[in-house]
């Protein structure tokens, strides 16, 4: 790795606003992250921390008309080498990226496929659009893709409808769909949460294999740190709409800096036994994402065991621990 390549995806200080009936909310404020080609970045955080909103912002799929990117950039390097800021691409222009350069798998395999179209048609539709193949060629590509994701008897199954398949099979179909136009970036939003554990492992292995074989970047969204340890190269931790820590996966697990990350890791059964400093911390993080997120200080402070008065006063910035390790905590040196 002599030359530092331009990252495949680089999000910088992203802010997303939703105008709701009760006034505007900012579910994502200050998200920066990076995904490299052929690598997996895991985006972790508890429910409601803004992971899905971040991924929808990348796809340009924020609910219209009330969701929009307020600030920040989403730089994506295209197949042709051009780097574009997706935050500034108009809605129509985003269609050229979706499904072709950036593909997405969703959390809910049971409901993410159209019940009245065969799965073959659903894949072929995207292939025809982006690869400009004819009907027959698209159909046979769809069958190939189903084979690629290890669906047995792909030719026959292509003519089946989603309701004829199990959840695990449907998630494979979603992956086949996502992979069908050889995207450079795959966003997987909790793709295994709805599946049982053995199927989960198979799906993870499948995504990992496809990443390797296609030199594809993966943004893997999850709240399961066990999964992160298995597949991620880089981990970005979110809390209440902000990135609180980013590091390489080993670095993060062995030297977590942010109290929230530490608390998360200590919740893992394997890590609870011997924490970083030999102490056993908490089994579940007490409290929940604070209600008054507009308070000036650190958002995690109300739940943080290390918080001091100063934490409530000033909002911490992302600070570099090492060139590849960032933390949003003013006290990280002291901890």
């Amino acid at each position, binding site marked *: 790795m002599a030359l530092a390549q331009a990252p495949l995806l680089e999000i910088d200080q992203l802010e997303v606003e939703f105008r709701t009936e009760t006034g505007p909310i900012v579910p994502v404020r200050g998200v920066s992250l990076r995904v490299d080609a052929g690598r997996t970045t895991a985006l972790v955080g508890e429910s409601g921390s803004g992971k899905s909103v971040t991924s929808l912002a990348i796809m340009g799929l924020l609910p219209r008309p009330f969701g929009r990117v307020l600030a920040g950039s989403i730089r994506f390097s295209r197949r042709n080498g051009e780097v574009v800021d997706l935050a500034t691409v108009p809605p129509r222009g985003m269609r050229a990226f979706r499904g072709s350069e950036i593909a997405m798998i*969703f959390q809910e395999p049971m*409901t993410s496929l*159209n*019940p*009245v179209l065969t799965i073959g048609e659903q894949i072929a539709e995207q292939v025809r*659009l982006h690869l400009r193949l004819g009907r027959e060629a698209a159909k046979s590509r769809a069958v190939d893709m189903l084979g690629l994701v290890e669906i047995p008897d792909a030719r026959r199954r292509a003519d089946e409808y989603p*309701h004829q398949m199990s959840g695990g099979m449907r998630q494979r179909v*979603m992956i086949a769909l996502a992979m069908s136009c050889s995207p450079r970036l795959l966003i997987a939003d909790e793709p295994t949460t709805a599946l049982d554990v053995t199927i989960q492992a198979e799906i993870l292995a499948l995504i990992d294999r496809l990443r390797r074989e296609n030199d594809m970047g993966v943004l893997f969204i999850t709240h399961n740190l066990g999964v992160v340890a298995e597949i991620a190269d880089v981990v970005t931790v979110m809390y209440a709409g902000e990135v609180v820590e980013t590091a390489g996966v080993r670095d993060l697990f062995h030297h977590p800096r942010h109290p929230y990350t530490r608390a998360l890791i200590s919740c893992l059964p394997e890590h609870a036994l011997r924490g970083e400093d030999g102490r056993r911390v908490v089994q579940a993080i007490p409290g929940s994402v604070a209600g008054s997120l507009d308070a000036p200080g650190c958002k995690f402070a109300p739940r943080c065991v290390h918080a001091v008065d100063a934490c409530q006063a000033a909002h911490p910035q992302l600070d570099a621990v090492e060139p590849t390790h960032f933390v949003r905590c003013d006290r990280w040196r002291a901890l």
Partner: protein
Amino acid sequence: MFAAIVRKFAGMLVVMYIVATMVFFLTRLAPGDPASLMLGDQASLTDIEELRRTYGLDQPVIVQYILWLKEVVRGNLGQSIFLQRSVLQAIAERAEPTFFLALFSILIAAAIGIPAGIISAVWRGQRIDQVVSAGAMLAASIPSFWLGLLFIQFFSVRMGWFPVAGYGPPGGSFAERLYHLMLPASVLGIVNSALITRFTRGSMLDVLSEDYVRTARAKGLSEARIVLRHGLGNALVPIITVVGLTAALLVGGAIVTETVFGLPGIGNLVVSAVLRRDYPVIQGALIVIAGIYVLINLSIDVLYTFVDPRVKY
């Protein structure tokens, strides 16, 4: 699937039997007697008795009922008291205007209602949605006879584009007859489009917030394709249901429109039969209308299996 359709059909036969029975007794509950109506005020009691005997009206009602039912089961709806022909023949002669009126009306209602509902769902909450919803509200609250009179006044009397009423001169061409149906069909179509609009809007709104529509967006498809193929494709079952039910209601509603526009259809036949207590015609026509109802319902069920692969019998 075939067995299930047969089962459904059997169930509907039971419904038809109940309808027929109710119609039989209700018509007889109403005061008035065909024999005295036919013979007029001057007729002697013996003449009336004579005529009543001819049509079996002197028998106890329950006996009349059993005799009538026996014939109906054999497909014989009996003889009209006033029209000198069988009930079936009388209905067949009047079927054409009613059939085409209902057909054109439902086509117009669907052609207005489905696109309007889609548009208002896609642009929900915006100006166009408000305009469509207000229009639907208006259409739903206008009585069809009033809109009919308004249309006649404007399009026929003032503009002279359409005939005022009737079904053309006897022996007129088919095209000419259909031309006479355009105005009444538009009236019925507009009035009935309201329900279809609201239903389409509602089911499209449901469907457009489904996860698979988000998937379709994530595929980079055009908005038109997302809305029509992935949205409408899934909203079709409820839409077909409401269009079918509207069609069934239209057959019943034809009575009013045919009267306003002076069309010699089944509605007209029933109205004059009621006025003259022509029991066999009333009973026969209502059985036929109930039969059409049943047929429409069965066709809806069959259509479901085409638009939704999950529907299995």
